[in-house]
């Protein structure tokens, strides 16, 4: 029977694209989830959004075939998904970052140094959350997405100079938060 409405994703037919997508999401889960977490404010929403972003990417995998930088394309989808959910999710279910302390990445230093590091990470995470939205987007795309400033500018439709300015402003705020001396 002729199938007119569409076809099931046949990973065998497109093994490279589906696999690349799955591998990318698995490999970059922490970065993707962190990006959504800072956009949405809590882990639960971030997980939902990431799952939704994966589905979007999966359904549009055909379009990604011609895309040179798959990671940038995925981050773009993730960022748009997070933005779409941000307004509603932000007010409804935002929880303080401290509630997600358990999700902090573990370090390899001793207990005392590890405690100090966890404290700094917490401060940095709060500081990231307090960045202006446009600074936050640039920082997360650069930090987690590992995108070049040119790619970020193209994605956000702003000049590269503006991207770097936002990045500098974000770094200054974050550095002050880490130093905790307000210099």
């Amino acid at each position: 029977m002729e199938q007119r409405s569409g076809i099931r994703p046949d990973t065998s037919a497109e093994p490279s694209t589906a696999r690349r997508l799955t591998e990318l999401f698995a490999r970059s889960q922490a970065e993707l989830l962190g990006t959504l977490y800072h956009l949405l404010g809590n882990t639960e929403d971030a997980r939902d959004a990431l799952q939704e972003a994966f589905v979007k990417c999966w359904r549009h995998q055909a379009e990604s075939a011609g895309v040179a930088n798959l990671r940038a394309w995925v981050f773009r989808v993730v960022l748009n998904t997070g933005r779409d959910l941000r307004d509603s999710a932000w007010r409804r279910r935002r929880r303080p970052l401290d509630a997600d302390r358990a999700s902090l990445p573990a370090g390899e230093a001793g207990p005392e140094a590890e405690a100090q590091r966890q404290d700094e990470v917490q401060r940095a995470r709060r500081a990231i959350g307090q960045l202006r939205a446009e600074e936050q987007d640039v920082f997360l795309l650069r930090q987690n997405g590992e995108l070049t400033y040119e790619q970020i500018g193209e994605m956000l439709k702003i000049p590269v100079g503006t991207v770097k300015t936002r990045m500098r402003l974000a770094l200054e705020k974050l550095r002050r938060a880490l130093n905790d001396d307000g210099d």
Partner: protein
Amino acid sequence: MTLDAATRQRLLELAYETISEAEAAELRQRIASDPEVSAAFAEAQRQAGILASAARLSVEPMAWKPPDAPVPPPKPVPPMLANGPRSNWRLAHWLVGLAAALLAIVSLAGYGYHRQQLAQLASQQLRLFVAGPPRLEGGAPAQFTVVSTGVTGEPVPAQIELTIVTPDERPLWREKDWADKQGRLRSIIPANLTIPRGSRLLVSASHDSRVERIAAPLNVSEPQYRTHLVLDRVQFESGETVYARSVSLSRFAMKADRELGVRFELHDAKGAAVGASVEGLTQHGVGNAALKLPATAPPGDYAVVARSLDRSFAEVRQTLVVGRRSAVEDGKPNGGESAEPPVAAGETIVRFFPEGGELAADLENRVYFTARTAAGQAVKLSGRIVDSAGTEVALVETQRDGMGAFYLRPRPDRQYRLKILEPAGIAALPKLPPVVTEQKIVLSAGTGVFAAGRPLEFNVRAAADGLPLVAAVACWGVVVAQQPLVTSAEAGGANPMEISLPDEIAGVLRLTLFDYSQSPPEPIAERLVYRRPKQQISLRAERLIEPNTANPTSRADESSASASLKDAYQPGERIELSLSARDEQQRPVAAVLGARVAIAEADGGVSLPAGMLLLGSISHPSDLENADFYLAETDEASAALDLLLGTHGWRRFVTGAVADARIGRANAAPADAPLVFDNLIEIRDEYQSSLNAYRIQRSRWLTTLTTLCFFGGLALLLAVAILGLLRVVAGAHLWVSAVGAMLCCAIIGAALVDGHAARGSGDIAVAFAPHRAAAEPSAPQEKNAADDQLGRIEMAKANKGFRRGTGTVESDGDARQLAVDERAEKAVPRAAAGAAPARKVDALADANRSVGRSDARRLSSPSAPPAEVQPRAQRPFEIREYAFEPSDSIDAARTLLWRPLIVLDDKGAAKLAFSLPKVEGRYLIAIDAHGDGRLGSLRAEFRVAPVPKP
């Protein structure tokens, strides 16, 4: 760590590669050479790691399962997307934006060209509008208003030239000036210019290469004079002598610039002459006479009449009563302000006077009203205005002397009545005038009283757009200024107006709005206003103190007259007064005085300023018992004067039609309508022709261009839709550009196709119907005769009203005279409009050819009886003075002093002495002054009574 924050910031930025390569190289060099910087960079990298950890979120690995829903088949990728979506999106936006901009620019350029062509066509036409007085009277400043605009009404600052040429085409007077930013020029022909009959006014306006000319015949007439007549008193006995004094001054400059021949006559109640008349030439404008009442003169009403021997002024008369004593000869002070009229016990007659004349529907009207008893006594009244549905719409209360005003916005389908609350017990509901739906404007003159030297500022509230109106200001029947107005119903219909007047124009002025949408123009609103004189004489009287005089010093002047009224003097005392006259700047002025000291009567005579400034224009001088009070420069006096003038609204003072405003409107002849010349009708046709030619010429290619733009916009819209449907490229920006270009092309195309929508002929300015004066050279003479007749009628009414005010009874003879006068009055407009037989007009024209404007001789009117043609008096009047001496009889003491002519010296000073009788009584010192265009008066009452010695 001693490194500064800026360096640490730069090191962190180095870790994130946000700094330039040059700066990065420098920093790396410092890191390599400086251990402290190296340590700081290590710290920055550590912080970058912290930030990386903070940016990530490490949780247990998620399961990435493919969704169950079918995945849509891969779309064919268009070639333009092969290089990435971003570049194609930009390309599409550029293409659509360029196409939209191109279409919009072409459309706008076409529209701009069209506008420029229209403006050029309009600029080829120069509209010239001229308005001026229908008659130029000698001594009166004549103001012409010239307006230059384009055919669409936009002001054009053209160069205006006005020239008066004599009948032999000799230029007599010329003024050349530029119109202001509003395209207006106000030109005043000097009052002292002698203009021969048959002269013409030529007006030309030039702008760029366009020149428009208008020629207007001028109606000129000789200078006219105002005359004020006063007697030594009102009450007389048979056999007594009546002293009369007249002051004749030029109407506008109010100067005695020429001595006039005056004849005084004494008439009985039937109008028959009693005794011999006295005539002579005035001195300093003053005429005087001593007229002897016969010993057998029966009791009744008499009148002293002053007539001009050369018809330079309208006949004036002053009534007197023989044989009856005034009821208020003693006791009641004269000239008091009766702010609280008595409450009427009987019938109350309420009359309403909408400001301007008629009650206009759906506009806010100010309605003046009077409340009087059947006997004419003022009534204090309050009540409510209710409509036919019983709804209360306004509160009403008299404010002074039975007069008041209220505001009302009437509806066209309602009838309004007054429900009287006080006095109580009045069941009648007086009706307001009917609401006139055809009346589209309301004249609102604010306070109605304007300060000296200030322009008349008023408002024309309009319910309709585009009414061509001319507001004319007339003084003594002579139009002295005018201003055109095209009404606008926007902003609540308010159309503020301001008319500047020469300084010498003062007193009661008639403000009339004429509708020039038709010819002849129709007066549609009118009211009286008052403008205070800029110059005046302040009189001061001080009693000279004799040595060892026991009585205190008496001092009287205008500002402290009331204090003098309470002074009492010993019977038989001799009083010497020092008089001084000052102008408005307190400089001495060599004025001419007339002084009388006589028994105080209820009607003590109107002062010279009140007589000159108020009386000539008030139809019911009985309302002016306190005439001098109205001239006081106080808010109370201004408000009272406004009420007084407001109750003399719609041409009632001219036609006498008081029952129905519409009757007054129908009878009102536009003899005093300003001349209007407007070439708009001619240039409008020319403009229409050129506009049509332009449309035909431009239609071929401009319509093609418009059509191409329209379909181009449509094609662009279609292209965007197709791109979106094919998923090639889509976005709101594309649609905004395409729809914007499409709308722009459609609107501009529609405007270009329909010229009316783009400033075509629909925007041509409103035209004023031309109005010209009677063409016959003799028309002014006819008009002057009519005016004189009208002046006599007004004066007759004035004196009749005065007699009513004193409570005396009219005689049958006067009533008949008035009836005759009113018949003559009805004939006045026709005569003025040139309706007299042509033969008579020709005869007057022949007679007038040798009469210049400077020649003061007046020709007789065809309607005037031949007996009224009098030779000019050759000799000045003999000055008849009188001073009471204590040895005279008691009756003779009713007049203590009569000095009709006192000429002050350069210091403005003179002395006056008189003796008091030996009987008690209340007396009035009345002094009038005039000089150099100024008027003044002094009134002071005193009592003769024994003063108890301390």
